[in-house]
């Protein structure tokens, strides 16, 4: 009985001293800066396209990469403003197993569809034809762009860049004027308690890491007998590994906040980021060679290890059960 009482005492004492993460801090230091950068870089991208829409323009290509980096840094924050009107899907339609993006762009180009001339109208076309992955195909797939007149390709590049910037600024505006407040000051219909807001961040973190492991790495890995290097994300512009590292770096920041700087979490992220950096394989072409493939598989295991630590140790502290069924997803 005594032992039990002292345990209870210890637990309540430690709870009294323990800090808990504040959702408002994450909004201010993680979400808003990320979306501010995205809004700024995509505005630059739109300006670069307006200035010189040639697919060979070095300024345009540089702006494309900067803006894409900014997107990757927030691409795990898939809730709230990013999900309204399918904005995030309109920024990032990938993976694309049925090749909707190249097929749809080819059709627009073949028809010289006038939808590209009108920004309002362009915002209503299929999400597969908008965003970074559509723009990448125009900038880096010469087979696609040589199929149509330069003026039309130019118009399409501008329409997509403009649409990306518009979308990014709408997401930022919603976060600044409304949604950030819902998370920072829970007790509203969306977030009734701070825990609910933290759980949303944790879900975004887990889902983001799962996407990097299963999709960014898993799709090109395919199987040992049938690797799929052509499925690597944004490989035309050489960004496959860059996106992996960018996403790990961004999710690391969020994980540090949610775990109150748990050294095990930091260590696990550092191991994965270091391994990714050392890969030196921008388009993950190594999936098709037995030796190189092994290193990419180990990177995937590193990320799975982060996910396991988060699910087993950080999630429960935020009231997210690491249950047999709750993690199942069927």
């Amino acid at each position, binding site marked *: 009985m005594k032992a039990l009482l002292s345990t209870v005492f210890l637990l309540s004492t430690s709870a009294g001293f323990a800090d808990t993460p504040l959702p408002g801090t994450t909004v201010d230091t993680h979400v808003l800066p990320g979306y501010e950068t995205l809004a700024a870089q995509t505005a630059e991208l739109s300006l670069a396209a307006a200035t010189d829409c040639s697919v060979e323009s070095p300024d345009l290509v540089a702006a494309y990469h900067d803006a894409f980096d900014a997107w990757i840094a927030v691409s795990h924050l898939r*809730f*709230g403003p990013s*999900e309204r009107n*399918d904005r995030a*899907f309109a920024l990032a*339609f990938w*993976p694309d*197993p*049925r090749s*909707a993006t190249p097929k749809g762009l080819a059709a627009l180009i073949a028809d010289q569809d006038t939808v590209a001339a009108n920004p309002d109208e362009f915002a209503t076309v299929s*999400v*597969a034809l908008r965003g970074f992955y559509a723009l990448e195909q125009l900038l880096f797939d010469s087979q696609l762009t040589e199929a149509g007149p330069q003026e039309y390709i130019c118009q399409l590049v501008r329409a997509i860049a403009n649409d990306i910037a518009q979308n990014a600024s709408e997401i930022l505006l919603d976060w600044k004027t409304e949604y950030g407040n819902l998370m920072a000051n829970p007790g509203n219909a*969306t*977030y009734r308690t701070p825990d*609910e807001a933290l759980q*949303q961040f944790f*879900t975004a973190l887990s889902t983001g890491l*799962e*996407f990097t492991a*299963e*999709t960014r790495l*898993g*799709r090109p*890995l*395919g*199987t040992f007998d*049938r690797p*799929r290097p052509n499925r690597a994300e944004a490989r035309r512009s050489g960004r496959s590994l860059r996106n992996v590292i960018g996403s790990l770096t961004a999710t690391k920041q969020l994980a540090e906040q949610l775990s109150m700087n748990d050294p095990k979490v930091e260590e696990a992220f550092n191991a994965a980021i270091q391994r990714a950096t050392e890969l030196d394989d921008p388009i993950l072409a190594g999936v098709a060679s037995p030796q190189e493939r092994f290193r990419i598989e180990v990177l995937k295991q590193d990320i799975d290890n982060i996910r396991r630590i988060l699910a087993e140790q950080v999630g429960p502290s935020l009231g997210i*059960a690491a*249950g*047999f*069924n*709750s993690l*199942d*997803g*069927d």
Partner: protein
Amino acid sequence: MANRRAFIVGMLATGLLPKATWADVGSPAFLSAGLTHDGTYVLCGLTASSQIAFTFPLPARGHAAAVHPKLAQAVAFARRPGTFAIVLDCASGRESVRLIAPAGRHFYGHGAYSADGELLFTTENDFDAGKGVIGVWSTRDHYARIGEFSSGGIGPHDIKLLPDGQTLVVANGGIETHPESGRTKLNLPTMKSNLSYLSLDGHILGQVELSNEYQRNSIRHLAVSQEATVAFAMQWQGDLTDQVPLLGTHRLADDRPPKLANADTFHNLQGYVGSVAANLRTIAITAPRGGALLEFSAQDLRLIDRLDLADVCGVAPLRSGFICTSGNGHVGPSNGHGFGDPYPIKWDNHLVAV
């Protein structure tokens, strides 16, 4: 050996041998897959009083089971994207047949027998084409694969036979996946879930889709009442703070859109329902991520009761109320009374009545 076994299965099917009964394996009232404390995946029989009747090892994680309508036989299905299903012979307590999904297909974890038990229907993924398939197996012929037809959509998950014995209802979840990218959802922006009613030879008799605002709702699990009302449980793939209905009912006979439960009811369930069961007047859903079992009136889908139980998922109808299981080993009635000590088994998604 295989021939002899086929012969016996055939004899059993034609009723020439005295039938083995479930009594030979401890008279289970329910079946559930699970994970034991030593890491073995199993299929267990549970009696009406929540005792373990038998434990049968599985080669990998199971999901749901289907019970033969005439013989004391059951099939345990591998969890998606698994490729095996095991027919359990209750007399010996051993595996009698193993179904292997054909090349280019994997199981989704559910299946249904025809009313006479001659055919078994399985939900499958034709993953290179990204299309849903219903596999057809002849139980009389040693569970030979005898055909397949379209499920009427992408990602067919649960499948049930309606009481008329002529109609299958399939929950096409709408989500494309490919085993090479694990459980990654490949088509969320364009996904379209539906409820498809199919004849036993694969003709589409009716289809129900959700309105556009619920385009990201994936119809996943089904329960059919004696009056052929289909209760369907959904999993929301959009923003988790959106308030959306996760339970609906529909009748093929009525030419009407489905009834949906009030969206407010599902707050804090993380958009995720794992199982659904129906008895005469009520419908129960389980929400393992929300740690709750919710009971609704079947008539108007009004919430009438709630049980908070961490990681609850398996649920099956009792004459009155429901029995449920959790990933923490609990088995007990949905009124929350009469839970014994938890078993050292993590009960998996589905509890199936024998």
